[in-house]
């Protein structure tokens, strides 16, 4: 007698309740705490990868790839500052604090950036002598916490960056958990060792763009109008935020998309607040153009920049330079598979390690543990960063030459098309193979 079993359907997991969502529910149920991690948004969002360059053909004349000059320099801060900055390449190193990073990592960032003629940036926690010593061009961040802020370092800086927000957490403050508060970090921040250090989300002595204008004037007065002053914003309402930064007197606007990293904040914040960089650049550029300030107030963009194509696309959309953070750490050695055994011990894997706030980084970068920090050779890591920066510049030049441009700043939206409707709408370039730019039909809503 033959038996018959009803066939089962193939096991299917929910698209909504995927493995990650399920693991997060279990984690939350076990701890009662939200998840904190470092890095930027990991979810898939419309991205620079959704754009393509057209290159030259019958109607455009390319430059010879290896011979004809294609400039990469950029001048920042010539609106008001007596001493504007000139970078040799349009790629800068984003603000990352001593505290979130080891002193060795900060030194390596300075070495790498200096070797390529570009700038690095302090972070929440102040300026270390090592960082100043190894950075030929150093931008000093002016943050709500004012940890380590003092007029001597302000005068030592080559530029000042007033941080209003960052892409990973627009509207949020910072957090450096107690396990990373070493004696030196604590001393620089005027706080006890070993306690969580919260960085406020609002500046303590100004509110809104009218106040910011007065604050910027004070910083200029203290430094005798010599230093370029940047204003850094997280990508939220880029048109108005950029316009208000310009109104407040910024020399440079730094715009950080949601893929931009943070040392530590809530996962829910990183993944659900703010705009992807792709969606933020054109509104910011539009604001500058509407004010007649494009190329007069420079625009630096950041958040998910990985290669020279990303650099070139940002410049083509109207930025003057880009800034990198996560990619720079990877160049130093962060998340390197060479540490896979240790990553496994920490419950993760190379490429996914993001518990930077715990201070147990096997690569010795996001830590204050002296034994771990020693693993990073600042000279060697700085060399790797310089190599990586060189590749970014070379790749951007390669694309610019292919588009017939003698300077990377000559790239323009007309050189681009989009692979998706979403990217076409956000970047305001045509969908590939068409002349359709979604949103250009109606100006009803206007810029945001």
């Amino acid at each position, binding site marked *: 007698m033959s038996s018959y079993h009803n066939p089962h359907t193939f096991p299917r997991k929910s698209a909504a309740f995927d493995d990650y969502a399920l693991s997060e529910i279990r984690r939350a149920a076990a*701890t*009662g*705490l939200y998840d904190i991690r470092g890095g930027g948004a990991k979810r898939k969002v419309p991205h620079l990868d959704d754009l393509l360059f057209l290159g030259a053909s019958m109607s455009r004349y390319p430059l010879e790839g290896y011979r004809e000059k294609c400039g990469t320099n950029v001048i920042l801060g010539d609106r008001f500052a007596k001493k504007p900055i000139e970078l040799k390449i349009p790629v800068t190193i984003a603000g990352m604090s001593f505290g979130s990073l080891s002193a060795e990592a900060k030194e390596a960032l300075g070495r790498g950036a200096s070797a390529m003629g570009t700038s690095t940036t302090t972070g929440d926690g102040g300026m270390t002598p090592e960082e100043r010593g190894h950075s030929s061009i150093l931008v000093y961040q002016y943050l709500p*916490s*004012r940890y380590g*802020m*003092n*007029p*001597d370092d*302000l005068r030592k800086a080559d530029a000042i960056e007033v941080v209003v927000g960052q892409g990973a957490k627009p509207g949020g403050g910072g957090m450096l*958990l*107690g396990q990373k508060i070493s004696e030196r970090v604590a001393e620089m*921040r*005027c*706080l*006890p060792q070993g*306690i*969580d250090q*919260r960085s*406020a989300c609002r500046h*303590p*002595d*100004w509110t809104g763009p009218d*106040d910011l204008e*007065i*604050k910027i*004037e*004070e910083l200029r*007065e*203290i*430094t*005798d*109008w010599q230093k370029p002053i940047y204003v850094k914003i997280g990508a939220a309402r880029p048109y108005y935020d950029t316009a208000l930064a310009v109104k407040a007197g910024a020399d440079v606007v730094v715009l950080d998309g949601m893929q931009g990293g943070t040392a530590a904040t809530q996962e829910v914040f990183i993944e659900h607040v703010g705009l992807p960089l792709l969606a933020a650049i054109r509104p910011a550029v539009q604001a500058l153009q509407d004010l007649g300030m494009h190329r007069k107030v420079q625009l630096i963009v950041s958040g998910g920049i990985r290669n020279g194509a990303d650099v070139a696309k940002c410049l083509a959309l109207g930025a003057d330079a880009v800034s990198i953070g996560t990619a720079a750490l990877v160049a130093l050695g962060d998340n390197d598979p060479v540490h896979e055994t240790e990553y496994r011990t920490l419950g993760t894997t190379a490429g996914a390690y993001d518990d930077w706030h715990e201070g147990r980084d096997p690569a010795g970068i996001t830590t204050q543990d002296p034994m771990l920090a020693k693993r990073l050779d600042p000279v060697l890591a700085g060399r790797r960063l310089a190599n990586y920066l060189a590749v970014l510049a070379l790749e951007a030049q390669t694309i610019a030459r292919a588009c017939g441009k003698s300077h990377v700043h000559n790239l323009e939206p007309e050189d681009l098309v989009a692979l998706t409707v979403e990217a076409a709408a956000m970047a305001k370039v045509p969908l590939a193979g068409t002349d359709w730019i979604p949103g250009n039909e109606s100006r009803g809503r206007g810029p945001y």
Partner: protein
Amino acid sequence: MTTRVIDLATEGVRGLNAALHADKAHKHWQVLNPAGLHSIAVGIDAPTTVEIDGHVGYYCAGMNKHASVTVKGNAGVGVAENMMSGRVHVLGDASQAAGATAHGGSLIIDGNASARCGISMKGVDILVKGNIGHMSAFMAQAGTLTVLGNAGDALGDSIYEAKIFVRGTVAGLGADCIEKEMRDEHKALLFGRLKAAGLDGQVDVGEFRRYGSARKLYNFTTDNLDAY
């Protein structure tokens, strides 16, 4: 000692600050016609004295080092913000964020101070002879805030290691801020602050209450959710 007189009506704030930064040897300055202008006498890095004859706007004496600055009038937002050392004396009232994030030195306000007095202070000694507004000493890290009058709501919210002394009433305490025992060491500390302001013998330290951090929020745990 000669006094160098700067009239802001003719030389402007830039002229004043440029002179203060360039001429560090000059020991006494008088500033005329401040007229509520912003950023007056900011970034001084010299043991000089500056007298300002009138009201000042935002950030007067910001990031001061070593200098003694007297405002013969009222001060706008952020007077003596991020001061490192020296002394700033406001003879009138001060607007909000007086002494914000200041690392050192002393700030004396003869009148009242508005909201957020001593916000994120990092070592400064602030003394207010009148009242202070709400959210004062928010996230105050170090230093002392002495108030001869009353304090507004949410005093010392999320305070770290700063010490607050209030002689009058407190409308309310912020998260993790509690009243603490006034031991002899604290009375001695307070006496020193009063003496530095020329108030020794005039004010009894026994009339003050001390406030500071309960230190329960120093490391985040879910058990403290109700505190926020």
